[in-house]
């Protein structure tokens, strides 16, 4: 980058650009170079026991980290030093942004992406489209490589089951979902203890408890409609899975005909729609997640659906003794296919290596450092979020919320499930946010919800321009 560009050289370059500008397609082809060119691999080093991926020891690696709930300290203080310790000659070029998409989309469309990207936040890039466009590197060799600090184990053997599948597109692992998140209804142990309440196991217990809260002037159940309706559709589908089994979610992911019209989805929508009409505060439609979470911290809200990052996110505003606790959603009917302690749990928070980056090997090596036991442990220490690396919490003192989500996960045993359609098909995600708000806040019906979602699923299925995925 030239900093002291003279006016003259600007004009010279301008003239050059003028010539380039003649054909309309100029930009797309000209500045991109040959598009079918295989990625250059000039950053290959020698493969050794300590360097299983063959990283060139002095090659720069560029990482971009989303600056959100997890912060970026875990990268700058843990993973980058770890990489540099092994490769002292290498420079790790770090940057952070709140707007992943605004900053990185042009870099991908010009084939000059950074090497490793943390694709997250409300302005994340469509991961499915990125994979479909051939912009993401296959991580198979990373998962086959030996772990950095767990002797005798390959990286894949150190992970929580399901991690690799969660990042698999078309049969190949492209994305590392690093954080392990448990979803459920969060509440304050103190509030419950003070009132002699316990977490409900059945729907009847649930509504009785909500009535009790209402009598005390507490909004029993709340989520933020302005930017977090996604937490709520996750809840609706969790209930649907409990009623009809986890395959319902698989059918939705695979865009199977009438997957949304399954009676279990309809019933779940109906039950939650009633909760919305009866126990929720309409004002929450226009609030953002932190605002509703603050209300819960002030004991004005009973249950709040969220992932296990909640405790850390609210750390500063949580009064002493509040004690976050998570409960699995109550059983919906007496004939539920899954037990009441079944939960939605999934590896999340996407990290991927750009296939057309300058240092693909370095990008993968960076992920290997993230997946080391030490890297994972310090990540959890800094962010209070579990990782997909097994046993990485050994020796850590768990906070109340973290302990309760670990317990919920253990209670659920094999009965944990997740879905992927929301990251595969952004169009469906957008529609589901609207449909959920309509159902929960604006007097929408379960039928309407199901119809809207089926319609958008059908539209996505029929649209040949959208890359399809299956699991």
């Amino acid at each position: 980058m030239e900093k002291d560009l003279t006016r003259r050289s600007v004009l010279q370059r301008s003239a050059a650009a003028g010539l380039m500008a003649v054909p309309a397609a100029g930009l797309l082809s000209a500045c991109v170079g040959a598009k079918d060119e295989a990625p250059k691999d000039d950053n290959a080093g020698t493969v050794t026991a300590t360097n299983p991926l063959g990283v060139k020891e002095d090659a720069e690696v560029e990482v971009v980290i989303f600056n959100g709930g997890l912060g970026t300290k875990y990268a700058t203080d843990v993973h980058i030093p770890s990489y540099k310790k092994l490769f002292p000659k290498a420079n790790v070029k770090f940057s952070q942004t709140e707007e992943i998409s605004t900053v990185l989309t042009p870099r991908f469309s010009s084939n000059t992406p950074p090497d490793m990207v943390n694709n997250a936040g409300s302005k994340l890039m469509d991961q499915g489209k990125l994979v479909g466009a051939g912009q993401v590197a296959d991580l198979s060799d990373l998962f086959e490589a030996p772990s950095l600090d767990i002797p005798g184990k390959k990286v894949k053997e150190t992970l929580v089951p399901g991690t690799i599948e969660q990042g698999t597109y078309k049969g190949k692992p492209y994305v590392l979902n690093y954080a392990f998140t448990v979803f459920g209804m969060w509440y304050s142990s103190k509030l419950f203890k003070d009132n002699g309440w316990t977490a409900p196991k059945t729907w009847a217990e649930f509504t009785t408890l909500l009535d009790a809260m209402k009598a005390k002037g507490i909004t029993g159940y709340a989520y933020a409609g302005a930017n977090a309706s996604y937490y709520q559709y996750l809840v609706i589908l969790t209930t649907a899975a409990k009623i009809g089994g986890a395959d319902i979610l698989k059918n939705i992911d695979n865009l199977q005909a009438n997957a949304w019209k399954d009676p279990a989805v309809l019933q779940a929508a109906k039950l939650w729609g009633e909760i919305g009409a009866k126990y929720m505060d309409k004002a929450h439609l226009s609030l953002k997640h932190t605002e509703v979470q603050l209300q819960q911290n002030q004991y004005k809200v009973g249950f709040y659906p969220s992932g296990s990052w909640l405790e850390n996110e609210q750390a500063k505003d949580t009064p002493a003794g509040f004690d976050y606790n998570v409960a699995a959603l109550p059983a919906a009917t007496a004939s539920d296919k899954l037990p009441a302690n079944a939960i939605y749990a999934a590896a999340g928070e996407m990290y991927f290596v750009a296939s057309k980056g300058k240092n693909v090997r370095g990008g993968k090596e960076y992920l290997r450092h993230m997946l080391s036991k030490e890297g994972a442990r310090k990540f959890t220490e800094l962010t209070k979020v579990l990782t997909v690396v097994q046993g990485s919490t050994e020796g850590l003192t768990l906070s109340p919320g973290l302990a309760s989500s670990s317990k919920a996960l253990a209670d659920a045993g094999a009965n944990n499930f997740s879905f992927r359609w929301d990251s595969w098909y952004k169009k469906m995600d957008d529609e589901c946010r609207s449909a959920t708000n309509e159902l929960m806040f604006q007097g929408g019906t379960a039928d309407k919800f199901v119809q809207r979602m089926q319609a958008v699923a059908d539209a996505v299925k029929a649209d040949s321009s959208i890359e399809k995925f299956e699991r």
Partner: protein
Amino acid sequence: MSILDKKTKREIRVLSGFGHVSLAIWALIILFPLGFAFLAAFKSNTEIFIGNPFGLPSNWDFASFGRAWSEANIGTYFINSIIVVSASTFGTMLLGAMAAYVLARYDFFGNRAIYYYFVAGLAFPVYVVLTPLYLVVQNFGLLGTHTGLILVYIAYSLPFTIFFLAAFFKTLPNAVAEAAMIDGASHTKLFFRVMLPMAKPGLVSITIFNIIGQWNQYVLPVALLPGGDAQSKWLLTQGIASISTSAGYQADWAALFAALTIAIIPMIIVYALFQRQIQSGLTAGAVK
């Protein structure tokens, strides 16, 4: 005459009374939100989002200003904004005035075509061309530089500037120009020595439009000054938006409002000081 006088006086009293009330109400409507933003810099998240919006903070803690200044670099961003906007406004006015002048006062082949070429840009929203624009700026090696941003600002301000200045130059009397030409002044000299000073009122008002527009620009800096190395070059709007997005996660709203206050106060002072000049600059320019 005296009856008439009385009638006018009464009318003035009524009007003045009514006027005072409505002006005061509007002033309150403006000041209330600003006052709230100022107080919020001292409040806790809970006080801001759950408390009484008219309540005073429980303690007057200036720490949020420190956080906004040092951690969020608001000071640096503020200076960056001033640098970029001064340079781009100057460039816009110079190039815009040159083009507008020639288009308004000289007859040549293609005059109308060039004029409409510029004016069509008036209807073009920047954010739709972000990716192509990004690639152009990148190809010039200007990505992440203030130079690049300044050039882009100038280019996008030209349509509006030329549109209004051309209209303005047309209204200037011919006699002075002709006299100067007879005295042997060159075209360039005529422009800088005679026409520009005569056009001062128009220039002032368009300059203000441009300063405001460019000062508030958000999408362009986000795209053209991405994070990483360029973060030290960020502009104020970016800095504030960055706190506001990360406030959504880390929830330091007090620092956000402190940053807002830091950003607002200098602008208020500058405006109050130059109010008279702005007003008089607008005076002649406006009615033409």
